[in-house]
């Protein structure tokens, strides 16, 4: 349970990190809080030759109210997202979801940017960021670009990040008074990964749902949107939610493992989506 030997550099800034990544190509990995990367290195499922530590880049640690959205520096830790008053007031889904990641020790070290860059479909934050239609700011040698969360997660542990790029900021919308949210995480033991999770962000209008956005955790190789259920929920009222979510698992490809069969995961996706939407419309 000791990682393969590697070289280690401390990045002094984002630009320095990009430079170091450029020198070492895909032999290098960025180290944020290390709570996804170090466990897989200890299991020797990953053996990067070089770690570039972003831990001292204080410019990436912030949560800012930017008027219509909230900007979160990639090195902001889960415990800070969980407690931040601006997020709790205007984007409660993200603060709440961060509070369910791992355990307190993990949340004291793990970062929002690290979790997203790891791109694990079983982790909680990506599906919340999908349902929120978050945007990610990415910096590389040729400057900065912005990617929608929907376009970011490509395949199992694969994201849109190039080997010499750094995720620097996460932008989430401020939710208005007609917007409700919920995250329903199902697991068997404390501290476990979600067997399945469902996030709902629901816009209400005159007693019915105008739009619903659903993010699913652990229902395939990437975090997913439940687009068929989203379409069916448009115009639904409290009495028709249960029918509208019957296809919440459409387009998913859950795996079977020790925690659950694929069939049970599909069942959970429907049940948890219903519970999430029901809670979202009522708050």
């Amino acid at each position, binding site marked *: 349970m000791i*990682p393969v030997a*590697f*070289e*280690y550099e401390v990045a002094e800034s984002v630009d320095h990190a990009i430079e170091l990544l450029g020198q070492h190509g895909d032999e290098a990995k960025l180290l944020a809080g290390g709570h996804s990367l*170090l*466990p897989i290195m200890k299991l020797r499922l990953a053996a990067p030759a070089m770690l570039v530590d972003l831990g001292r880049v204080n410019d990436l640690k912030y949560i800012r109210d930017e008027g219509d959205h909230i900007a979160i520096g990639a090195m902001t830790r889960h415990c800070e997202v969980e407690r931040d008053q601006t997020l709790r007031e205007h984007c409660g889904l993200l603060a709440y979801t961060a509070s369910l990641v791992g*355990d307190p020790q*993990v949340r*004291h*070290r793990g970062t929002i940017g690290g979790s997203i860059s790891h791109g694990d479909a079983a982790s909680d934050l990506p599906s919340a960021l999908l349902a929120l239609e978050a945007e990610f700011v990415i910096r590389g040698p040729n400057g900065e670009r912005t990617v929608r969360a929907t376009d970011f997660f490509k395949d199992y542990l694969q994201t849109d990040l190039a080997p010499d790029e750094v995720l620097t900021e996460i932008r989430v919308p401020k939710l208005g008074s007609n917007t409700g949210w919920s995250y329903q995480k199902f697991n068997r033991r404390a501290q476990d990964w979600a067997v399945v999770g469902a996030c709902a962000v629901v816009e209400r209008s005159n007693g019915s749902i105008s739009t619903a956005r659903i993010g699913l955790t652990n229902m395939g190789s990437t975090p997913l949107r439940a687009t068929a259920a989203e379409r069916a929920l448009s115009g639904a009222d409290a009495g028709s939610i249960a029918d509208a979510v019957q296809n919440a698992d459409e387009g998913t490809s859950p795996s079977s493992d020790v925690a659950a069969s694929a069939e049970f995961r599909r069942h959970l996706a429907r049940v948890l989506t219903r519970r999430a939407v029901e809670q979202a419309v009522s708050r």
Partner: protein
Amino acid sequence: MRRIQMTVDGRGHIAEVEPRLLLLHHLRENLGIGGVHWGCNTTNCGACTVLMNGESVKSCTVLAVQADGAEITTVRGIMENGLWHPVQQAFHETHGLQCGYCTPGMIMASVSLLKENPEPSEQEIREALEGNLCRCTGYENIVKAVQMAAPYVRRSEPVAAS
């Protein structure tokens, strides 16, 4: 090798370490602090919990080089004025342990909790100790220990030994 310095239980230490050395092994093997327990080594059990700059972390999932410049507190460093920390004394009073393997981690996770939430409910205590496994006690007396310690920590008073 990389030169690092950190303050551990109030004393400064400088060392040359391999980047892959875990904080856990640095504390146990280089600094001889056996009170940091080596449990699962997979970020699950919490036996290796220490405070890093005042907050609980699992030292098996922190590289020693990441802790360069940090202030580390282990179970050895929390006595005050020669008396046990209220959380230590409360674990003793309520018998919040059987074999004791999880105890240093439980104590450090509880110290961290009471800094962040000085008046936790029973449910909050249970959730805050989610990252610490005890295979003996069933947790009942551990929760009681934290409940007992909380008011003493708030008043910065030692728990009287019974």
